[in-house]
């Protein structure tokens, strides 16, 4: 069983985590949901489309204008409370590396701390433990938040991913997070070039084999763009192909911009695997 704050899920459930950016400058939506009402509309839409989780972020991942903790709290915490009230059945995740932001978010009703920068602030897992929230332990190759990979080299990128994420998971449990509330994430493109992101995808089964549930964040990222030589707005097909491979390898949670399309891919793979019956089969059967 996977426990995400107030919510629990079966081990064969594949969950869609919809990205909701409260930022003026994130790479894909470019500020479309920076305003609170636009962000709430986005939440309504993704919940209606079947997302189990919303991931609320107040700081874009790439370098850019400085966003301090106070501003990050201003962007995210009241919004968490508003979503909690409006959608009590949705899992609320907050995309942050800062414990002080995590504390305010948990107090406002967040269920999951999406620590996408590799545990740079060990206090974040302690906060999750204290509030009974879950945590995502991500590989960022030891890079500091909001930095780009520059000539990052690995003897074996998957070995580094396994070592760091499992160590972070163990640390989270030691900090008080429930063992069934810890996920690991290979961190596509974080501290990785395109080749590295392809390699962690190719070998994602090795992460799944650790026993920790695996979250992947693939949506419209640069490794898709570089692999297919397509601009930002033409990366959905490559994202979905990658999603299918990760699903086949056994990933459990998918952090995405496009909910409906992702859900179709996950349902299709689950039916191929044999864990989900097709929706309706009559052909040749009548």
């Amino acid at each position, binding site marked *: 069983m996977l426990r995400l704050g107030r919510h629990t899920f079966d081990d064969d459930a594949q969950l869609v985590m919809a990205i909701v950016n409260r930022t003026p400058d994130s790479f894909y939506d470019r500020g479309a949901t920076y305003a609170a009402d636009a962000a709430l509309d986005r939440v309504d839409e993704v919940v209606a489309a079947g997302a189990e989780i919303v991931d609320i972020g107040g700081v874009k991942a790439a*370098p*850019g204008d400085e966003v301090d903790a106070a501003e990050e709290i201003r962007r995210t915490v009241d919004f968490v409370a508003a979503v909690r009230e409006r959608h009590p059945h949705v899992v609320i995740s907050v995309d942050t590396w800062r414990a002080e932001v995590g504390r305010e978010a948990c107090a406002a009703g967040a269920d999951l701390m999406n620590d996408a920068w590799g545990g740079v602030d060990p206090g974040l897992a302690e906060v999750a433990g204290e509030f009974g929230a879950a945590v995502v332990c991500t590989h960022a190759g030891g890079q500091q938040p909001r930095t*780009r990979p*520059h*000539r990052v*080299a690995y003897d074996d990128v998957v070995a580094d991913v396994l070592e760091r994420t499992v160590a972070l998971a163990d640390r989270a449990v030691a900090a008080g997070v429930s063992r069934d509330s810890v996920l690991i994430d290979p961190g596509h493109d974080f501290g990785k070039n395109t080749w590295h992101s392809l*390699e962690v995808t190719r070998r994602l089964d090795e992460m799944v084999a650790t026993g920790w549930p695996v979250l992947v964040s693939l949506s419209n990222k640069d490794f898709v763009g*570089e692999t297919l030589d397509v601009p930002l707005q033409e990366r959905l097909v490559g994202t979905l192909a990658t999603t299918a491979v990760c699903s086949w390898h056994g990933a459990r949670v998918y952090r995405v911009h496009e909910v409906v399309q992702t859900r179709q891919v996950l349902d299709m793979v689950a039916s191929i695997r044999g864990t989900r019956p097709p929706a309706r089969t009559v052909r040749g059967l009548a």
Partner: protein
Amino acid sequence: MILAAALCPHPPLLLREVTGGADPVRELRAACRSALRAVLATGPDVVHLVGADGAPVTAASYAPGCAPDASEAVPLSLLVGRRLLAEAGWDGAVRELPVPVAASPDECVRLGAELGGRDERAALVVLGDGSARRGPKAPGYVDERALPFDAEVLQALRAADAGRLADLDADLSDKLLAAGRPAWQVLAGALEVARWRSEVLYADDPFGVQYVVATFGRGD
């Protein structure tokens, strides 16, 4: 004595298999080849390969799953230098000088002067890059000191001015992610012992990192 010297950058992109189907640095690659051919045409008995020390890597360290690379793991600068030499057709003697990234300007200049003072007919191939903080899309994002810093380096290279290269500040170079500083200062030490003319074949920052390709021939 040093017959001639070439300066090239050492991004992993210069390892052709790392860039995938397309070649996004065709022009840079061609400039490096021209520079090395010009320098090797002076007929050296040995080539000194000079570049920043670092963790040993192969092409597979950057591109797992690309064409298998049987080469020995060496610091990136030397890996790229070896490849450029091989692509330029050099199969003669090579001596490698990995320069500690923390070496002071004085230490680097001394290393270069020692190379320049040897009783041998040598060519120098120096690997070094400018700042990686030249704009919002750069690997290291923006530092407003990056453009003037790289401009100063470029002017010093165009003028073959060893003194100006030797004066570059190590701390500032580190902050600007300018990996070439120690290697440039070894070059400065090697150039000090004679008069030189230089030719810059390439100077651009297509991906936010300053790359310069230059050759140095004796002017005396």
